[in-house]
């Protein structure tokens, strides 16, 4: 069966995201749009995933806990986990390797943490916009240990993308799926990059505002509408 997805959505925990990106707003907007599965992927943090998952508990939508990691090479990777526990284990590694600098809210924006009622619990004071001192190859190794998935983000962009920063996709990495950005014309893009035809391409919104979240326009084929089948389809 085909399911409608958007696997790249930021909450107000990401310094550059709108403060209306709260768990209830995101989940309910995604339900209204008729999406089957979304992933919460803040910059270098998974701390709002749990609240989003709680909001979705009695709704017909799958919430995948994730993170948009910025590696040492300044490559952005969407890392998805099957459960919040694995995401939190990975979070510890990421925080250990983030530079010990504090966020400057006036410049980068506030980094808000919510509960499942959209109440602000606190602000994260780490500089989440920085690069994590972890190499691309290490990320694949660590995520694999946690049964997660790594999807190189917005590879059609010239900045913070695997192809822009490293020129091409390293052979040694086990990659099946690549993400392109919301405005990418996939056919034209693949015409230009013929060597990418062997990969599964998914489109995501990289939403920083509620209205950025995709409509039913990006699909993957799964056996059943559940998290195991989604991971099966992406791996």
């Amino acid at each position, binding site marked *: 069966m085909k399911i409608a997805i958007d696997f790249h959505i930021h909450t107000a925990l990401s310094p550059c995201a709108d403060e209306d990106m709260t768990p209830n707003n995101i989940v309910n907007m995604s339900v209204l749009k008729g999406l089957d599965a979304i992933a919460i992927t803040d910059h270098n943090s998974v701390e709002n995933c749990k609240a989003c998952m709680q909001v979705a508990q009695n709704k017909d939508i799958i919430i995948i806990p994730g993170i948009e990691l910025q590696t040492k*090479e300044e490559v952005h990777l969407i890392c998805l986990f099957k459960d919040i526990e694995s995401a939190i284990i990975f979070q510890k590694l990421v925080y250990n390797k983030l530079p010990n600098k504090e966020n400057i809210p006036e410049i980068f924006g506030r980094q808000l943490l919510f509960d499942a009622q959209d109440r602000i619990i606190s602000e994260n004071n780490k500089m989440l916009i920085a690069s994590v001192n972890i190499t691309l190859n290490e990320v694949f190794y660590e995520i694999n240990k946690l049964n997660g998935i790594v999807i190189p983000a917005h590879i059609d962009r010239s900045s913070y993308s695997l*192809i*822009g*920063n*490293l*020129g091409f996709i390293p052979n040694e990495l086990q990659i099946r799926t690549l993400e392109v950005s919301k405005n990418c014309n996939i056919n034209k893009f693949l015409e230009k990059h013929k060597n990418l035809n062997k990969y599964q391409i998914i489109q995501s919104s990289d939403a920083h505002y509620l209205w950025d979240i995709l409509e039913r326009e990006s699909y993957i084929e799964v056996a059943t509408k559940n998290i195991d089948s989604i991971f099966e389809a992406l791996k």
Partner: protein
Amino acid sequence: MKVNDLIKKENFKLLTDNQTISKEIKGVYCCDLLSWVMANAKAGDAWITVQTHMNIVAVASLLEISCIIIPESIDVDMDTINKANEENIPIISTDLNSYGIFCILHDLGL
């Protein structure tokens, strides 16, 4: 000038095997976006980059770069060094920053 002339200088250390040090350095290029380097660097350039991923070796090999110079004492993975040895691309480490490297290359006649 040759790669050999550079590694004779203080501050410059060859990380790879020394079978490639007779390569001629014809120019110098500095950039960290590998897609940009692939499009703009020239054969024979010494390439300064903070990137240490294995892909730098493939890019250098593709463009026939004379050597890769890693500034500011950044660690280079063994995987990258091994690959560079396979592809005969010299990798040089230095504590200098890009400006410092440019000054020395300029003094050596580039």
